[in-house]
């Protein structure tokens, strides 16, 4: 039988505010255990949480960027459960009136993945197992860091679509400065709800939920493995159990969590400590006006105004760090940049930059080189000071340590010869030494010229402009 997979995502993103959602502790990543904690986020009795206005601001921005309706009357609810990463024994979240509802993100195919809601909530602390004490160590530094939970409808039908949805969301969150989107620091993680059903069926199968997956690759792998597991189960006469599973990316498989799922009754109720939040029409208008250019709009502009191909713009706009690098580089080549400067900056970034980034496993936000250095290198090629091959070698140094390309070219004597007499002397020497090839060329064998160009370039140590050498050879052989 043919099956189809039905996937919904819950994407959690930590907001890049300076302070926590209900207290003034820093949200800074890292730090010694329990050093970013106060009575509010430690859940001490009598402490009064006060909402960080910036969290509302950013939630609205995320909502507007994903075509959501903004809820005017917001309140917070307590989600009650016992777990040692949550010192209050409840998480402050929004159940009844989430701040944004009914939006969507559009995939490259034109398909829209609908968003059911976006709500504000607080993150929990971190537990690590201590094998010596056979106990868990609780660090509450992350406790109270603001989160947005973005919930999609079950509109996703494969791993690729799921990854693209997360990528689009990440780009939108980065562009709008809602979150830094750093998956490796847990700023962005996803729960995957998945079920399978016979192809064409209208009823949904029993779904499982895989929690806290924190890389795009792991999301794709988890989806493929879980769909296969469910299909195998059904094919062999079994049934899928509704349960929460943990994806072990190293093992490449998921396993059911031994949690007390049966007791999952959160007894939600409005948090009496936090008065409602009214968002006015004027607030929404002000935020809408201050919205930066979004990925989709930028992509369109790159194509129509800068004349970049669709594939290139897709890659460039998928990551805000790449966008910033691209725009700053082009501007540093010449201000304002010409279409050729944009094209050249794009080619370098999508070519050498991303190649070295993947080779060294460096994320765009951690690049060591400045746009100015890349621009200098581009100018060296543009002015024929060095050729492309040399430029690629120089860029390795730029990429590794932000080496000044001009100084490097000078120091290693890599600049091309501009001395026409020297070039002529070298070419004439090559012709004299290769009579056979000269004869072949004159008798109509065109590829002999390539050989002569190669020999000439070799004699000039690659430091002469190839078109010039070719033209000179052709003239001398005429």
């Amino acid at each position, binding site marked *: 039988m043919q099956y189809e997979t039905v996937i919904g995502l819950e994407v959690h993103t930590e907001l890049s505010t300076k302070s926590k959602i209900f207290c003034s502790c820093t949200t800074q990543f890292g730090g010694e255990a329990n050093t970013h904690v106060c009575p509010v986020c430690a859940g001490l009795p009598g402490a009064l949480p006060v909402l960080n206005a*910036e*969290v*509302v601001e950013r939630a609205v921005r995320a909502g507007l960027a994903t075509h959501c309706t903004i809820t005017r009357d917001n309140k917070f609810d307590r989600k009650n459960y016992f777990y040692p990463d949550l010192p209050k024994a409840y998480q402050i979240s929004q159940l009844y009136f989430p701040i944004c509802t009914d939006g969507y993100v559009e995939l490259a195919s034109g398909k829209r993945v609908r968003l059911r809601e976006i709500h504000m909530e607080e993150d929990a602390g971190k537990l690590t197992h201590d094998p010596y*004490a056979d106990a868990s160590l609780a660090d509450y530094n992350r406790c109270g860091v603001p989160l947005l939970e973005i919930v999609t409808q079950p509109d996703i039908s494969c791993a690729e679509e799921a990854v693209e949805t997360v990528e689009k969301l990440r780009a939108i969150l980065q562009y709008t400065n809602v979150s830094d989107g750093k998956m490796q620091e847990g700023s962005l993680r996803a729960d995957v709800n998945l079920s399978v059903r016979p192809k064409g069926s209208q009823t949904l199968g029993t779904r499982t939920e895989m929690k806290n997956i924190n890389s795009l690759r792991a999301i794709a792998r988890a989806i493929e493995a879980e769909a296969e597991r469910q299909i195998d189960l059904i094919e062999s006469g079994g049934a899928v159990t509704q349960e929460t599973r943990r994806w072990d990316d190293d093992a490449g498989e998921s396993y059911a969590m031994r949690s007390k799922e049966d007791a999952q009754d959160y007894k939600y109720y409005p948090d009496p400590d936090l008065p*409602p939040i009214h968002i006015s029409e004027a607030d929404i208008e002000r935020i809408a006006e201050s919205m930066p250019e979004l990925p989709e709009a930028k992509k369109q502009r790159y194509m129509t105004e800068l004349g970049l191909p669709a594939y290139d713009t897709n890659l460039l706009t998928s990551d805000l760090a790449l966008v910033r690098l691209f725009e700053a580089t082009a501007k540093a080549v010449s201000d304002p940049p010409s279409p050729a400067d944009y094209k050249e900056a794009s080619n370098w970034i999508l070519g050498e930059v991303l190649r070295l980034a993947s080779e060294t496993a460096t994320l765009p936000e951690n690049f060591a080189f400045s746009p100015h250095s890349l621009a200098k290198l581009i100018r060296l090629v543009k002015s024929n000071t060095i050729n492309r091959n040399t430029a690629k070698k120089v860029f390795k140094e730029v990429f590794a340590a932000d080496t000044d390309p001009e100084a490097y070219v000078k120091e290693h004597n890599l600049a091309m010869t501009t001395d026409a007499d020297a070039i002529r002397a070298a070419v004439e020497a090559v012709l004299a030494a290769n009579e056979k090839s000269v004869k072949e060329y004159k008798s109509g064998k065109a590829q002999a010229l390539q050989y002569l160009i190669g020999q000439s370039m070799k004699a000039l140590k690659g430091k002469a402009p190839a078109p010039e050498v070719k033209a000179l050879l052709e003239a001398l052989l005429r």
Partner: protein
Amino acid sequence: MTVDSTIVTYLENLARIRLTDTEREKCTDDLQRIISYFDELDAVDTEDVLPLSHAFEQVNITRLDEVLPSFPTEAILQNAPRQKDNCFLVQRTVE
């Protein structure tokens, strides 16, 4: 609504507490009386009344996004029954 021993046991589990038989009996009785108050509310016509989540009319109480010093770790860990490496040492959590 009738509060019976099934509901009380369920609540015990949710609250992670164990009641003695005497306590359970008293609790059932207390809860039954509390729930009965709500039956009175059910009898009132609330057709045009908006749901009330807060007793005061305050709205939009927020703070600016500013960082202030956190508490010293020793102060935060003061009430920890057990501690290690500046962390609360808690019962092992199984995942």
